[in-house]
């Protein structure tokens, strides 16, 4: 069973943090899909 955390609409920093997480994951996936190695991946 998961613990539930609700982000208030006013918490722009938290909303932005989750947005970045999704973007970074997508970037890394694209990098790997193009034959990149995780060892060479650098966060933008």
């Amino acid at each position, binding site marked *: 069973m998961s613990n539930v955390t609700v982000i208030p609409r006013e918490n722009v920093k938290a909303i932005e943090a989750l947005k970045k997480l999704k973007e970074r994951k997508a970037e890394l996936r694209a990098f790997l899909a193009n034959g990149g190695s995780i060892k060479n991946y*650098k966060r933008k």
Partner: protein
Amino acid sequence: MTKNSHEYRVTFSEVTKIMDFVDEMPVISNGIYVIVDAVHENGMLGFDGRLGITIVEIIRHYLDHVDRFSILVFNCDSNDGKQVKRHYKFERWFRMYADDMAFEKIDEEILEPSGDVYVPTFISVLFAQDHPRRKLIFEEVQELKKKFIEK
């Protein structure tokens, strides 16, 4: 490679390459972010009885042979809106195939406002039951939760 010849890749990456909001957390920032990807789909990705045990065995191998005290972080993809199903599937795999692994798993469902609704994001943190920094891991997760619920 699974029963239906789908090919999956499991990637273990430093968590800070994906989650910069843990940069300030002394313990969790040393965690490993785990990504499971279907890299070659042989038709529809339907039920495949070998997939769950294969993924769990790869994770077990990592903990047994790379670092037993790794802090593994998982986050179900939400791009297609199927994160709830993925989270429960992941839960089921761990219940079925990993009950002998002596680990603890913290599961957090974060509800993020999006227009008029709230969209769930699932984040799980997995670590050994006897992890030397167990208490700090729980404290840092609580600290992160506090930051998320601030107004």
